[in-house]
């Protein structure tokens, strides 16, 4: 079927989740992600799933924690201030090795900020966010096709790694409409959830917890987590390169910033400037190896983000002084135009 659908970004995420057999959603209203709970409220009824409008973001993600422990595919969504509230339970999900999909349709911050699109939660998303040594698998879609595909993938990866997975979108991509192909969901071979709490009929009782008080126990648990993150780094890295092979300057950008930058790259190319775009699709694991290779060929980088400079830290770590890494960003929910990026590149080219 090559029929296209025309939906709002937030609705694409919700429908993709339903398509990927998510049957439990709990959330709390916050702009600019309200279409997700609204859409889920009627779709979950249609598919006989569970929709709960919780009393808070804390409650919503702890409902997801409970549903996930029962073995259900469960999701919650919010926007930046609400995601801050969820950090406690995200740490518990990681510590208890419970799969869940968490959607952050970012808005401007800090504090109550504004309701414009933003990328200011990058560091919170990729460095853990809550307490303790843990990582989320973080996907950054840049169009609605990826919103669809990556949301479905997120559920599979959450189950595969028994780890929370985040879709890091923003107010622009959440609110915009464009056509996409609703590719059918094909469930991969995943191990049975032989850890879920369903009552101990015919088996020994199970415990899901994150408290380990015995000598060395918690360190060993952490080592297991770190091995998991290492595996992610080896096999889950995703990125897209556009015109990087002969480029003298590579723009590094993710999500909606990459979408905007792509227009600038095309215009600069038409004018003969050797500019490329490198777009991380997974923010954790970060495509550091590829960036490191690209840096060996004597070219310069400019990281472009809708924040005051967050991913640029990871870009600099990956490049490790081998090339110059410049930064251009707009914090506080400001959204740059393709012309702005075009002008910026012209001045540094």
């Amino acid at each position, binding site marked *: 079927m090559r029929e296209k659908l025309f939906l709002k970004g937030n609705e694409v995420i919700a429908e993709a989740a339903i398509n990927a057999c998510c049957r439990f959603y709990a959330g709390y209203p916050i702009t600019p992600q309200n279409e997700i709970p609204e859409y889920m409220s009627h779709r979950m009824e249609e598919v006989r799933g569970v929709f709960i409008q919780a009393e808070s973001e*804390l409650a919503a993600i702890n409902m997801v924690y409970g549903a996930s422990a029962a073995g259900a595919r469960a999701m919650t969504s919010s926007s930046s201030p609400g995601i801050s509230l969820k950090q406690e339970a995200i740490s518990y999900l990681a510590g208890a090795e419970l799969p869940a999909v968490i959607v952050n349709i970012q808005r401007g911050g800090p504090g109550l900020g504004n309701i414009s699109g933003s990328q200011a939660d990058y560091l919170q998303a990729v460095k853990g966010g809550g307490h303790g040594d843990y990582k989320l698998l973080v996907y950054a879609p840049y169009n609605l096709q990826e919103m669809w595909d990556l949301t479905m993938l997120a559920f599979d990866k959450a189950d595969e790694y028994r780890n929370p997975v985040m879709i890091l979108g923003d107010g622009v991509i959440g609110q915009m409409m464009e056509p996409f192909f609703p590719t059918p969901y094909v469930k991969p071979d995943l191990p049975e959830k032989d850890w879920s709490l369903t009552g101990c009929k015919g088996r020994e009782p199970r415990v899901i917890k994150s408290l380990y008080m015995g000598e060395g126990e918690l360190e060993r648990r952490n080592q297991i987590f770190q091995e998991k993150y290492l595996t992610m780094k080896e096999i889950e890295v995703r990125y897209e390169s556009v015109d990087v092979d002969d480029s003298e300057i590579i723009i590094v950008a993710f999500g909606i910033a990459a979408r905007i930058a792509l227009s600038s790259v095309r215009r600069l190319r038409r004018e003969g400037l050797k500019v490329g775009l490198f777009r991380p699709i997974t923010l954790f694991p970060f495509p550091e190896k590829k960036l490191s290779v690209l840096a060996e060929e004597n070219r310069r980088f400019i990281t472009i983000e809708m924040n005051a400079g967050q991913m640029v830290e990871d870009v600099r770590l990956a490049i490790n002084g081998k090339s110059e890494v410049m930064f251009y960003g707009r914090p506080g929910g400001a959204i740059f135009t393709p012309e702005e990026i075009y002008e910026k590149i012209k001045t540094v080219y």
Partner: protein
Amino acid sequence: MKKIFQRPTSLKQVPFRFCPGCGHSLIHRLIAECIDNLDIRERVVGIAPVGCAVFAYDYFNFDILEVAHGRPPAAATGLKRAMPDRIIFSYQGDGDLAAIGTAEIIHAANRGENISVFFVNNATYGMTGGQMAPTTLLGQKTTTTPSGRKVKTSGYPLHVSELLSTIEGASYIVRTSVDSYKNLINTKGAIEKSFRYQMEGKGFSLVEILSPCPVDWGFTPKDSITWLRKEMMSVYPLGTFKDKFEETG
């Protein structure tokens, strides 16, 4: 020969490691006995809270989920909605339920979630060493109210059962105690009723259990019982505060 007394199947064959005179081991046992009586061990999922009872999974012989401080009613909601035919209970202390988790308990009750909540009120934070709880009595000395709880700075003891009984979604709200044989029997009856209501789809129930904490109260186990009866019970009277389905006649 008829066996008339045995260790409940719902308890593991391990000794309790609670402090001498603590009420948790009694309450664990009562819950286990009820689960055995109702023959629901294989479809129960319990929630261990943050606090002294976090080690519930070391004692209960059925599935247990450990949940963040104050959030058990939300996690119980997730478990129950995902598996409506399983029996879900949360075991929570006064810090967990009446301080940090106040929003979660009120809204789980208000939604009429079909779950059982066992709320252990010992008027102190046991695990962390005896700080003031929302249920600490006026004048009661704790490590954070060294000269006794004062209204001016710390407000009043929170009456959870009375509060929840005003909520339309709640079905069964009762306060019991574990200070005497009679009250143990009453507590067991309340726990069993709470489970039965859940099995019959009757909605949200909460059993508040007054329980001694001799170590943090600074009394002997025996004096703790005296204090519980004299001081706690006068602030927290025992009784059924709400029973939507009470059999009349």
